[in-house]
Protein backbone atom coordinates (compact mmCIF):
# COMPACT_ATOMS: atom_id res chain seq x y z
CA UNK A 1 0.00 0.00 0.00
CA UNK A 2 2.85 2.37 0.83
CA UNK A 3 4.58 1.57 -2.49
CA UNK A 4 1.34 2.28 -4.32
CA UNK A 5 1.05 5.60 -2.50
CA UNK A 6 4.68 6.39 -3.29
CA UNK A 7 4.21 5.96 -7.04
CA UNK A 8 1.69 8.81 -6.98
CA UNK A 9 3.90 10.80 -4.56
CA UNK A 10 4.92 14.45 -4.55
CA UNK A 11 7.04 14.33 -7.72
CA UNK A 12 4.36 13.21 -10.13
CA UNK A 13 1.92 16.06 -9.35
CA UNK A 14 2.32 19.73 -10.27
CA UNK A 15 3.51 22.12 -7.57
CA UNK A 16 0.26 24.09 -7.46
CA UNK A 17 -1.78 20.97 -6.69
CA UNK A 18 0.73 20.09 -3.98
CA UNK A 19 0.47 23.56 -2.40
CA UNK A 20 -3.30 23.44 -2.43
CA UNK A 21 -3.40 20.23 -0.35
CA UNK A 22 -3.46 20.96 3.40
CA UNK A 23 -0.87 19.38 5.69
CA UNK A 24 -3.20 16.73 7.01
CA UNK A 25 -4.14 14.96 3.79
CA UNK A 26 -3.16 11.30 3.19
CA UNK A 27 -1.42 12.12 -0.13
CA UNK A 28 1.88 12.82 1.70
CA UNK A 29 3.99 9.67 2.07
CA UNK A 30 5.56 8.83 5.45
CA UNK A 31 9.35 9.23 5.55
CA UNK A 32 10.15 5.64 6.64
CA UNK A 33 9.26 3.44 3.67
CA UNK A 34 10.59 0.05 2.60
CA UNK A 35 13.41 -0.21 5.15
CA UNK A 36 12.92 -0.80 8.85
CA UNK A 37 14.76 1.31 11.39
CA UNK A 38 17.45 -1.37 11.84
CA UNK A 39 18.50 -1.63 8.15
CA UNK A 40 21.73 0.23 7.34
CA UNK A 41 21.54 3.32 5.11
CA UNK A 42 22.46 2.93 1.43
CA UNK A 43 26.01 3.55 0.11
CA UNK A 44 24.75 6.44 -2.00
CA UNK A 45 23.81 8.21 1.23
CA UNK A 46 27.29 7.83 2.78
CA UNK A 47 28.30 11.41 1.89
CA UNK A 48 24.89 12.87 2.66
CA UNK A 49 24.95 15.82 4.97
CA UNK A 50 21.67 16.23 6.84
CA UNK A 51 20.92 19.91 7.14
CA UNK A 52 17.91 21.27 9.04
CA UNK A 53 15.38 23.24 7.01
CA UNK A 54 16.30 26.92 6.61
CA UNK A 55 14.47 29.30 8.92
CA UNK A 56 13.79 32.95 8.16
CA UNK A 57 14.40 34.79 11.48
CA UNK A 58 12.00 37.61 10.69
CA UNK A 59 9.25 35.19 9.76
CA UNK A 60 10.05 33.10 12.86
CA UNK A 61 9.66 36.13 15.08
CA UNK A 62 6.39 37.03 13.45
CA UNK A 63 5.12 33.46 13.73
CA UNK A 64 6.11 33.20 17.42
CA UNK A 65 4.30 36.44 18.14
CA UNK A 66 1.20 35.18 16.31
CA UNK A 67 1.30 31.91 18.29
CA UNK A 68 1.53 33.79 21.55
CA UNK A 69 -1.48 35.92 20.69
CA UNK A 70 -3.40 32.89 19.46
CA UNK A 71 -2.77 30.92 22.64
CA UNK A 72 -3.74 33.90 24.76
CA UNK A 73 -7.04 34.21 22.94
CA UNK A 74 -7.68 30.46 23.17
CA UNK A 75 -7.02 30.33 26.90
CA UNK A 76 -9.33 33.30 27.44
CA UNK A 77 -12.05 31.57 25.39
CA UNK A 78 -11.59 28.38 27.33
CA UNK A 79 -11.87 30.18 30.65
CA UNK A 80 -15.02 31.92 29.44
CA UNK A 81 -16.59 28.68 28.25
CA UNK A 82 -15.54 26.85 31.42
CA UNK A 83 -17.16 29.49 33.58
CA UNK A 84 -20.35 29.55 31.60
CA UNK A 85 -20.74 25.75 31.43
CA UNK A 86 -19.69 24.61 34.93
CA UNK A 87 -21.42 27.23 36.96
CA UNK A 88 -24.50 27.46 34.78
CA UNK A 89 -26.28 24.72 36.73
CA UNK A 90 -25.27 26.25 40.06
CA UNK A 91 -26.46 29.68 38.93
CA UNK A 92 -29.77 28.17 37.82
CA UNK A 93 -30.17 26.41 41.16
CA UNK A 94 -29.49 29.60 43.03
CA UNK A 95 -32.00 31.45 40.87
CA UNK A 96 -34.66 28.85 41.61
CA UNK A 97 -33.93 28.99 45.32
CA UNK A 98 -34.15 32.77 45.30
CA UNK A 99 -37.48 32.58 43.49
CA UNK A 100 -38.86 30.12 46.00
CA UNK A 101 -37.62 32.18 48.93
CA UNK A 102 -39.08 35.36 47.53
CA UNK A 103 -42.56 33.76 47.33
CA UNK A 104 -43.27 33.36 51.12
CA UNK A 105 -40.13 34.43 52.90
CA UNK A 106 -41.85 35.76 56.07
CA UNK A 107 -43.54 32.47 57.02
CA UNK A 108 -40.42 30.48 56.18
CA UNK A 109 -38.16 32.69 58.24
CA UNK A 110 -40.61 32.59 61.19
CA UNK A 111 -40.79 28.81 61.03
CA UNK A 112 -37.03 28.65 60.71
CA UNK A 113 -36.62 30.87 63.75
CA UNK A 114 -38.99 28.77 65.86
CA UNK A 115 -37.30 25.56 64.84
CA UNK A 116 -33.89 26.98 65.60
CA UNK A 117 -35.06 28.13 69.04
CA UNK A 118 -36.50 24.68 69.80
CA UNK A 119 -33.24 23.13 68.61
CA UNK A 120 -31.21 25.39 70.85
CA UNK A 121 -33.42 24.53 73.85
CA UNK A 122 -33.00 20.82 73.15
CA UNK A 123 -29.26 21.26 72.88
CA UNK A 124 -29.12 23.12 76.18
CA UNK A 125 -31.16 20.44 77.94
CA UNK A 126 -28.99 17.65 76.61
CA UNK A 127 -25.90 19.56 77.56
CA UNK A 128 -27.17 20.00 81.14
CA UNK A 129 -27.92 16.29 81.42
CA UNK A 130 -24.58 15.39 80.01
CA UNK A 131 -22.72 17.67 82.39
CA UNK A 132 -24.67 16.30 85.34
CA UNK A 133 -23.76 12.79 84.36
CA UNK A 134 -20.12 13.68 83.89
CA UNK A 135 -20.02 15.44 87.28
CA UNK A 136 -21.52 12.40 89.01
CA UNK A 137 -19.04 10.12 87.36
CA UNK A 138 -16.19 12.35 88.48
CA UNK A 139 -17.38 12.26 92.06
CA UNK A 140 -17.78 8.50 91.90
CA UNK A 141 -14.26 8.15 90.64
CA UNK A 142 -12.90 10.40 93.40
CA UNK A 143 -14.73 8.42 96.06
CA UNK A 144 -13.40 5.19 94.70
CA UNK A 145 -9.90 6.54 94.65
CA UNK A 146 -10.17 7.65 98.27
CA UNK A 147 -11.54 4.28 99.27
CA UNK A 148 -8.75 2.51 97.50
CA UNK A 149 -6.17 4.70 99.19
CA UNK A 150 -7.73 4.08 102.58
CA UNK A 151 -7.78 0.32 102.03
CA UNK A 152 -4.21 0.37 101.00
CA UNK A 153 -3.23 2.37 104.03
CA UNK A 154 -5.06 -0.07 106.30
CA UNK A 155 -3.38 -3.03 104.73
CA UNK A 156 -0.04 -1.36 105.14
CA UNK A 157 -0.77 -0.63 108.76
CA UNK A 158 -1.77 -4.23 109.47
CA UNK A 159 1.29 -5.49 107.75
CA UNK A 160 3.50 -3.14 109.67
CA UNK A 161 1.93 -4.20 112.94
CA UNK A 162 2.51 -7.84 112.17
CA UNK A 163 6.10 -7.16 111.42
CA UNK A 164 6.48 -5.12 114.60
CA UNK A 165 5.09 -8.03 116.59
CA UNK A 166 7.45 -10.44 115.00
CA UNK A 167 10.37 -8.13 115.65
CA UNK A 168 9.43 -7.78 119.32
CA UNK A 169 9.01 -11.49 119.66
CA UNK A 170 12.39 -12.06 118.14
CA UNK A 171 13.89 -9.54 120.50
CA UNK A 172 12.30 -11.40 123.37
CA UNK A 173 13.65 -14.71 122.14
CA UNK A 174 17.04 -13.17 121.56
CA UNK A 175 17.45 -12.84 125.33
CA UNK A 176 17.45 -16.62 125.64
CA UNK A 177 19.92 -17.26 122.81
CA UNK A 178 23.18 -18.93 123.34
CA UNK A 179 26.04 -16.56 122.58
CA UNK A 180 29.77 -17.21 122.84
CA UNK A 181 29.74 -15.41 126.17
CA UNK A 182 26.87 -17.56 127.56
CA UNK A 183 28.22 -20.73 126.10
CA UNK A 184 30.17 -21.95 129.07
CA UNK A 185 27.45 -20.99 131.55
CA UNK A 186 24.71 -22.64 129.54
CA UNK A 187 26.66 -25.82 129.07
CA UNK A 188 27.23 -25.94 132.83
CA UNK A 189 23.56 -25.28 133.39
CA UNK A 190 22.47 -28.09 131.03
CA UNK A 191 24.85 -30.50 132.60
CA UNK A 192 23.66 -29.50 136.05
CA UNK A 193 19.93 -29.94 135.20
CA UNK A 194 19.39 -33.22 133.36
CA UNK A 195 15.89 -33.45 131.89
CA UNK A 196 14.00 -36.74 131.57
CA UNK A 197 12.35 -37.17 128.15
CA UNK A 198 11.27 -40.71 128.94
CA UNK A 199 7.52 -40.19 128.52
CA UNK A 200 4.82 -41.10 125.97
CA UNK A 201 2.06 -39.00 124.56
CA UNK A 202 -1.50 -40.02 123.77
CA UNK A 203 -3.76 -38.82 121.00
CA UNK A 204 -5.11 -35.89 122.99
CA UNK A 205 -1.58 -34.71 123.71
CA UNK A 206 -1.49 -35.55 127.40
CA UNK A 207 1.81 -36.74 128.69
CA UNK A 208 1.75 -40.28 129.98
CA UNK A 209 4.59 -41.02 132.39
CA UNK A 210 3.36 -44.47 133.40
CA UNK A 211 3.16 -47.21 130.79
CA UNK A 212 1.48 -50.66 130.90
CA UNK A 213 4.72 -52.43 131.12
CA UNK A 214 5.77 -50.77 134.32
Amino acid at each position, binding site marked *: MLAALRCCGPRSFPAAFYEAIPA*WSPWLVPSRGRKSRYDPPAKSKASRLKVPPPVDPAELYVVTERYRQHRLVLSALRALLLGSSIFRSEVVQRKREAQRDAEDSAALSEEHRLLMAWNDAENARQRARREERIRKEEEERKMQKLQAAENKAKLMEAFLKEKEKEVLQLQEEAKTFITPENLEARIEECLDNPRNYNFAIDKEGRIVKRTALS
Partner: protein
Amino acid sequence: MVQLGSALLKGYRGGHVVIRFALGGCTNRPFYRIVAAHSKRARDGKYLEQLGCLDPLPNAHGEKVAGLNLERLRHWLGCGAQLSRPAEKLLGLAGFLPLHPMTITNAERLRRRRRRAQESDAPPAEGGSQEPSAAV
Protein backbone atom coordinates in the same frame (compact mmCIF):
# COMPACT_ATOMS: atom_id res chain seq x y z
CA MET B 1 -27.37 -14.07 34.68
CA VAL B 2 -24.16 -12.54 36.00
CA GLN B 3 -23.70 -8.90 34.84
CA LEU B 4 -20.06 -8.39 33.91
CA GLY B 5 -20.41 -5.37 31.64
CA SER B 6 -18.72 -2.83 33.87
CA ALA B 7 -15.81 -5.18 34.57
CA LEU B 8 -15.17 -5.54 30.82
CA LEU B 9 -15.12 -1.78 30.14
CA LYS B 10 -11.72 -0.39 29.24
CA GLY B 11 -10.22 1.76 31.98
CA TYR B 12 -7.50 4.31 31.24
CA ARG B 13 -4.98 6.04 33.48
CA GLY B 14 -4.74 9.74 32.75
CA GLY B 15 -5.67 11.04 29.35
CA HIS B 16 -8.07 13.83 28.45
CA VAL B 17 -10.92 14.61 26.11
CA VAL B 18 -9.79 15.64 22.65
CA ILE B 19 -11.71 17.03 19.68
CA ARG B 20 -10.08 15.54 16.62
CA PHE B 21 -10.65 13.97 13.21
CA ALA B 22 -11.53 10.30 12.89
CA LEU B 23 -10.74 8.95 9.43
CA GLY B 24 -13.32 6.89 7.59
CA GLY B 25 -14.23 6.17 4.00
CA CYS B 26 -12.56 3.87 1.48
CA THR B 27 -9.31 3.60 -0.44
CA ASN B 28 -8.51 6.90 -2.18
CA ARG B 29 -11.67 8.37 -0.68
CA PRO B 30 -11.07 9.77 2.81
CA PHE B 31 -13.79 11.21 4.99
CA TYR B 32 -13.29 12.75 8.40
CA ARG B 33 -15.68 12.87 11.33
CA ILE B 34 -15.07 15.59 13.88
CA VAL B 35 -15.29 13.73 17.12
CA ALA B 36 -14.91 14.31 20.85
CA ALA B 37 -13.04 11.27 22.22
CA HIS B 38 -10.69 10.22 25.00
CA SER B 39 -7.12 10.95 23.96
CA LYS B 40 -5.97 7.37 24.58
CA ARG B 41 -8.59 5.81 22.34
CA ALA B 42 -7.78 4.64 18.82
CA ARG B 43 -8.19 7.26 16.12
CA ASP B 44 -11.28 5.55 14.68
CA GLY B 45 -12.32 3.88 17.92
CA LYS B 46 -15.12 4.53 20.39
CA TYR B 47 -15.81 8.22 20.83
CA LEU B 48 -17.86 10.27 23.23
CA GLU B 49 -19.81 12.28 20.67
CA GLN B 50 -19.66 13.22 17.00
CA LEU B 51 -19.51 16.97 16.57
CA GLY B 52 -19.40 17.22 12.79
CA CYS B 53 -17.82 15.95 9.62
CA LEU B 54 -15.42 17.07 6.91
CA ASP B 55 -15.04 15.99 3.30
CA PRO B 56 -11.42 16.75 2.32
CA LEU B 57 -11.98 16.24 -1.42
CA PRO B 58 -13.53 19.20 -3.25
CA ASN B 59 -16.99 18.66 -4.70
CA ALA B 60 -18.33 19.47 -8.15
CA HIS B 61 -18.32 23.21 -7.40
CA GLY B 62 -14.77 23.10 -6.04
CA GLU B 63 -15.85 23.42 -2.41
CA LYS B 64 -14.68 21.41 0.56
CA VAL B 65 -17.78 20.85 2.71
CA ALA B 66 -17.69 20.59 6.51
CA GLY B 67 -20.47 20.39 9.08
CA LEU B 68 -20.12 21.51 12.72
CA ASN B 69 -22.35 21.27 15.81
CA LEU B 70 -21.33 24.52 17.49
CA GLU B 71 -23.58 24.12 20.54
CA ARG B 72 -22.03 20.81 21.53
CA LEU B 73 -18.56 22.10 20.60
CA ARG B 74 -19.00 24.92 23.09
CA HIS B 75 -20.14 22.41 25.68
CA TRP B 76 -17.13 20.17 25.22
CA LEU B 77 -14.69 23.09 25.18
CA GLY B 78 -16.31 24.27 28.36
CA CYS B 79 -15.74 20.79 29.82
CA GLY B 80 -12.03 21.29 29.10
CA ALA B 81 -11.50 19.38 25.84
CA GLN B 82 -8.24 19.85 23.94
CA LEU B 83 -8.14 20.36 20.17
CA SER B 84 -5.91 18.68 17.63
CA ARG B 85 -4.01 20.96 15.26
CA PRO B 86 -6.10 20.24 12.17
CA ALA B 87 -9.27 20.68 14.23
CA GLU B 88 -7.98 24.06 15.42
CA LYS B 89 -7.21 25.09 11.87
CA LEU B 90 -10.62 24.06 10.65
CA LEU B 91 -12.40 25.93 13.43
CA GLY B 92 -10.21 28.95 12.72
CA LEU B 93 -11.23 28.89 9.09
CA ALA B 94 -14.86 28.42 10.11
CA GLY B 95 -14.70 31.52 12.32
CA PHE B 96 -15.57 29.80 15.60
CA LEU B 97 -12.01 30.28 16.88
CA PRO B 98 -9.40 32.85 15.80
CA LEU B 99 -7.35 31.90 12.73
CA HIS B 100 -4.43 29.59 13.39
CA PRO B 101 -1.01 31.30 12.95
CA MET B 102 0.17 28.68 10.49
CA THR B 103 -2.86 29.24 8.28
CA ILE B 104 -1.89 32.89 7.96
CA THR B 105 1.80 32.06 7.57
CA ASN B 106 1.18 29.48 4.86
CA ALA B 107 -1.12 31.84 3.02
CA GLU B 108 1.57 34.55 3.16
CA ARG B 109 4.21 32.14 1.88
CA LEU B 110 1.97 31.06 -0.95
CA ARG B 111 1.25 34.62 -1.90
CA ARG B 112 4.97 35.47 -1.82
CA ARG B 113 5.81 32.44 -3.92
CA ARG B 114 3.13 33.32 -6.46
CA ARG B 115 4.32 36.90 -6.65
CA ARG B 116 7.89 35.72 -7.12
CA ALA B 117 6.75 33.31 -9.82
CA GLN B 118 4.87 36.17 -11.51
CA GLU B 119 7.87 38.45 -11.29
CA SER B 120 10.18 35.75 -12.62
CA ASP B 121 7.73 35.26 -15.52
CA ALA B 122 7.29 38.98 -16.19
CA PRO B 123 11.01 40.13 -16.44
CA PRO B 124 12.01 37.35 -18.89
CA ALA B 125 8.99 38.36 -20.99
CA GLU B 126 10.03 42.04 -20.76
CA GLY B 127 13.70 41.14 -21.28
CA GLY B 128 12.71 39.01 -24.28
CA SER B 129 10.56 41.85 -25.71
CA GLN B 130 13.37 44.41 -25.06
CA GLU B 131 16.16 42.33 -26.63
CA PRO B 132 14.65 42.17 -30.07
CA SER B 133 14.05 45.95 -29.85
CA ALA B 134 17.70 46.45 -28.74
CA ALA B 135 18.92 44.12 -31.44
CA VAL B 136 16.84 46.07 -33.87
